[in-house]
């Protein structure tokens, strides 16, 4: 699996030509659970993207909200004639709509921070592996330092200093996550750069940049994808936790964590649905990503190959 990156199956597909990508797909599909996770996650992304068109109500549009509809039980019909299948919160907001819109924010923050952290971490990891020596030990010291402190604590402190806001949450998540990517890429790159194809590229006097981006990086991708998948789930969970603690996203852009926090005070009076359903949405999202990630790790890990 040296030069072929995922994608682009041959067009003139003779019956059952085995390409690395096909093999990857069929191995992935061996686990029904993982396939199920993938489908669920795809559906979640789809409903999040389509939220403005499929949600019964626009939870940002104050004109559509009626305080008289506040804290309605699931299944009851509100003053505007909408059936609130998952009930309403204290503002009279339809929970189903709130969840659909909240998913958008949770997914954006999760995926956005994971991608940014991946770019930062992979670059630094690659630099460490390729430069070696003092640069390497400096970067790896930083990684060790970062990883020895729990993510929640580091993120908490960064947000305490920066204040609330979606961008600040993303910054905090990138800071606590980059180290995982850096460590992964460095580990793989150290092994890969001793391989013959890198030697060959060096003998051809290709520019270093080209060797790193066109030769080394594609071969470091499999473990990076695995870490990336897991980190998206972690980022979503962490964002929800921070928002629940009141340090994450602002009240004007409620993610799932903030929706759950809103229901906290009504929990004790038995109005469970305000916190319960957003939590279920969060849980299903995280579990589906983890299921996919688990299987990816098994498939992409060459050490587990039979």
């Amino acid at each position, binding site marked *: 699996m040296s030069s072929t990156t995922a994608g682009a199956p041959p067009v003139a597909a003779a019956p059952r030509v085995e390409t690395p990508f096909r093999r990857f797909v069929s191995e992935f599909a061996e686990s029904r659970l993982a396939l199920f996770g993938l489908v669920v996650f795809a559906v979640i992304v789809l409903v999040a993207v389509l939220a403005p068109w499929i949600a019964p109500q626009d939870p940002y549009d104050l004109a559509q909200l009626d305080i008289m509809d506040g804290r309605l039980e699931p299944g009851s019909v509100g003053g505007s004639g909408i059936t609130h299948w998952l009930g309403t919160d204290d503002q009279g907001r339809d929970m189903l709509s709130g969840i659909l819109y909240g998913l958008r924010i949770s997914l954006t923050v999760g995926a956005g921070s994971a991608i940014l952290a991946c770019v930062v971490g992979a670059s630094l990891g690659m630099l460490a592996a390729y430069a070696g020596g003092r640069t390497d030990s400096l970067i790896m010291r930083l990684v060790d*330092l970062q990883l*020895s*402190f*729990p993510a*929640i*604590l580091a993120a*908490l*402190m960064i*947000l*305490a*200093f*920066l204040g609330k806001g979606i961008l600040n949450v993303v910054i905090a998540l990138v800071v606590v996550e980059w180290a995982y990517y850096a460590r992964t890429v460095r580990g793989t790159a150290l092994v890969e750069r001793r391989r013959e194809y890198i030697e060959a590229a060096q003998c051809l006097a290709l520019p270093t940049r080209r060797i790193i981006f066109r030769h080394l990086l594609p071969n470091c991708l499999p473990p990076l994808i695995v870490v990336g998948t897991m980190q998206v*789930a972690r980022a979503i*969970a962490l964002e*929800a*936790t921070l928002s*629940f*603690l*009141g*340090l994450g996203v602002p009240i004007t852009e409620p993610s799932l*964590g903030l929706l*759950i926090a809103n*229901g*906290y005070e009504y*929990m*004790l*009076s*038995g109005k*469970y649905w305000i*916190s*319960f359903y957003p*939590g279920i949405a*969060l*849980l299903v999202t*995280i*579990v589906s990503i*983890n*299921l996919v990630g*688990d299987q990816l790790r098994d498939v992409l890990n060459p050490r587990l190959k039979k």
Partner: protein
Amino acid sequence: MTVFLLRRLLQAAAVVLVMSLLVFLGVYAIGDPVEILISPEADQIERERAIKALGLDLPLWQQYLVFLGNALRGDLGRSFVFNEPALRLILDRMPATLELAVGATILALLIGLPLGLYAGLRPHSPVSKGILAGSILGFSLPTFWVGLMLIMVFAVQLGWLPSTGRGETVTVLGMRWSFLTRDGLAHMIMPMVNLSLFKISLIIRLTRAGVRETMLMDYVKFARAKGLSPARITLVHVFKNILIPVVTVVGLEFGGTIAFSVVTESVFAWPGMGKLIIDSINVLDRPVMVAYLMVIVLMFITINLVVDITYSVLDPRVRLEGK
């Protein structure tokens, strides 16, 4: 050994220094220190005096040295809200957090080890698959939400357990503890379960992986060939060998548990360090934030150091590697 110890100690000290610099910069460089360290209610004259007294008219590097000097003497500033030394506030709350974290760790070991052992010994039984699926769920469940659901079921609907606070406490060694009274223990159950959930999953996975690896070892085969009973092989030969990595990880994770108790304490209004820091962040009580951070940093470095040293005692290869 002495050289190794000395080197590790020096490294630890260096990390503390770096962290103190980061905290210092976080407080002094990102925010306006006057706003941060002087109560917003102070008038102009008070402000001037405070700026002089705090040395805020000095250059930054001198301020850092002053901060460091004060920190070494245990002076990390006074809380605006409680008007008490920040360090003492945190140390007052520490027993509550510690008993929760220790309780959660013990609970996690009691539940995680047997389940992991079973799943490792019978990897293909449906029960094991259930245990494994449960552990994935344990990793995925957002802690704070599980806490809310626990409150909903056991406090609101069933009314079995109290949902907030520490309950009755007993003073031992000058600190208040909940786990020594019936009422306190009842208050502890839900937060403890909540905090241990993630660790249970972790221990199940570690134990299971360890058992599966160990079962293939020659010494297990040999023990079996000798005709030892399966129970003895499992408990003496396998269990002892998987305990080392499990205990290491649990030890290292202890710091994480203390950090994560921020969430659990907020959900259950448990008056520990974690609740204090969240409250302090919300009212911008920065001296408490700084003090908390420094205490946590020290705690972490101590834990890492202890684990490192224990490791090097158990495994001489670690010690020799650096030479």
